[in-house]
């Protein structure tokens, strides 16, 4: 189980400091798929970076299976908003990169990387360089890379936000399949309500400045899900439940801008 307990974070310090997160607590069960949704600037990416151990929280703790995360952690696989592949390496060598860093011998890591490329549907693309891949293929290679060390939890930071809607739908289905196949816990940050509902067991809504979790909505839709499910009553209820706190927040700055 992953446990975020009372996490707070402020960019900068003193009077010029910009609070980004306030008192975030969130528990994610093993094999659970949790979505974190929020508008820009509510600290979604910051929260994910803290969970990945890339930045230390100013208050609170992150624990995975009751062991604290106090730096980049091998139990965590992180997928950034951008693919961040090494342009001088083939897709295969990019996927094998974390294994290479961990000192896994070449033969073993290449076999494992090949397996992972197959898992994300890139079995034939191993020899290609990142610039020869499409945006979606690059991001899937990044997912394969994040899975290389068999992490307990996969953290995804709006991984498909740069893709067109149709491609995104396709990759979301694939992400669901990967999640079921690997049995890893997933935390997905997104700003798309439909994406969150389609993928997650539970969606946490992050709102405000600094960001707080203002709602947690369970999505009781059966799996595997399909795009046509998005018309059912469960979905519209969930969407309404997610939209309410988001819109409450979105309304404020627009009004104040209009008045000011």
């Amino acid at each position, binding site marked *: 189980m992953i446990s975020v307990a009372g996490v707070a974070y402020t960019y900068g310090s003193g009077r010029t400091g910009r609070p980004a997160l306030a008192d975030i607590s969130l528990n994610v069960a093993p094999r659970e798929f949790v979505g974190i949704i929020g508008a820009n600037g509510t600290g979604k990416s910051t929260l994910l970076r803290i969970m990945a151990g*890339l930045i230390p929280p100013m208050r609170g703790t992150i624990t995975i299976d009751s062991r604290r995360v106090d730096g980049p952690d091998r139990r965590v696989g992180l997928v950034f908003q951008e693919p961040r592949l090494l*342009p*001088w390496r083939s897709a295969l060598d990019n996927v094998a990169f974390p294994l290479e*860093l961990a000192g896994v011998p070449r033969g073993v890591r290449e076999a494992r990387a090949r397996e992972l490329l197959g898992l994300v549907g890139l079995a034939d693309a191993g020899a290609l360089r990142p610039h020869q891949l499409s945006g979606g293929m690059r991001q899937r290679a990044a997912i394969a890379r994040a899975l290389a060390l068999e992490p307990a939890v996969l953290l995804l930071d709006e991984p498909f936000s740069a893709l067109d809607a149709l491609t995104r739908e396709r990759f979301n289905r694939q992400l669901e399949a990967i999640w079921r196949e690997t049995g890893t816990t997933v935390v997905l940050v997104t700003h798309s309500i439909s994406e969150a509902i389609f993928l997650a067991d539970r969606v946490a809504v992050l709102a405000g400045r600094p960001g707080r979790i203002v709602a947690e909505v369970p999505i009781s839709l059966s799996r595997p899900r399909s795009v046509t499910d998005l018309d059912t009553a469960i979905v519209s209820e969930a969407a309404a439940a997610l939209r309410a706190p988001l819109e409450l927040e979105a309304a404020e700055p627009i009004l104040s801008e209009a008045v000011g």
Partner: protein
Amino acid sequence: MSIRRIARDALPVLAGAAIFLAAWKLIVLLGGYQAFVLPAPEVVAARLLRAWMDGTIEPHVVTTLLEIALGFSVAAGLALPVGYLLARSRLAERVISPYLVAAQATPILALAPLIALWFGTGLASKVIICALIVFFPVAVATMVGIRSVDGELLEMGRAFRASPAQVVTLLEIPGALPSIFGGIRVGATLAVIGAIIGEWAGGETGLGVLINLARGSLFDTPLLFATLVTIAAVGVTLYLLVILTERRLVGDRG
């Protein structure tokens, strides 16, 4: 590679060379210059051939190549870590870079006799002069290259627990390599100039010495030209070697 492709690549080069040689010959003919002023291309070619056959040129080429190889290696070996330091430490940049620029702005021609005075007219002084002139472009290119490495890739490396040494060898150096090679290309051609200048400051053998001999006591202008051709050929060969290495190491990054 197909014959057609070779023809397509080589043809412009050959045509350019033909035009150059024809223009040279024409100038000699029209100006009516004697061989001790401006020898015709075929005279230079014949002299070059003879200088190689009778062993006039070979020891000089060997000496100069040795100076270049050592000078370049010393310079690159120092410039890579210094360039890295300049890129990653503000303090180092503030302290070192004024001297670097000042050293580069001082004409190497003026420094060469001093260096020959301090280190003698043997190999050491040539290697030092050669290294001095090569150091700057390689160090600056390394600095620029390391600084240009994508911060997002470094964060990715951190997320996957890259050790500091792995960050340098697997992220920073490969990321900076295209820029570093830009500096090495410049450095390779400067290395030739450095060796020649070093030899002019005093020495027994070397292509620079041969130039002085041909121009002075021997009064053999065709030999002077033959030496110049050899020096140019050394420079071009080194440059091509660097480019080939670059293609192997940097490859296609799109």
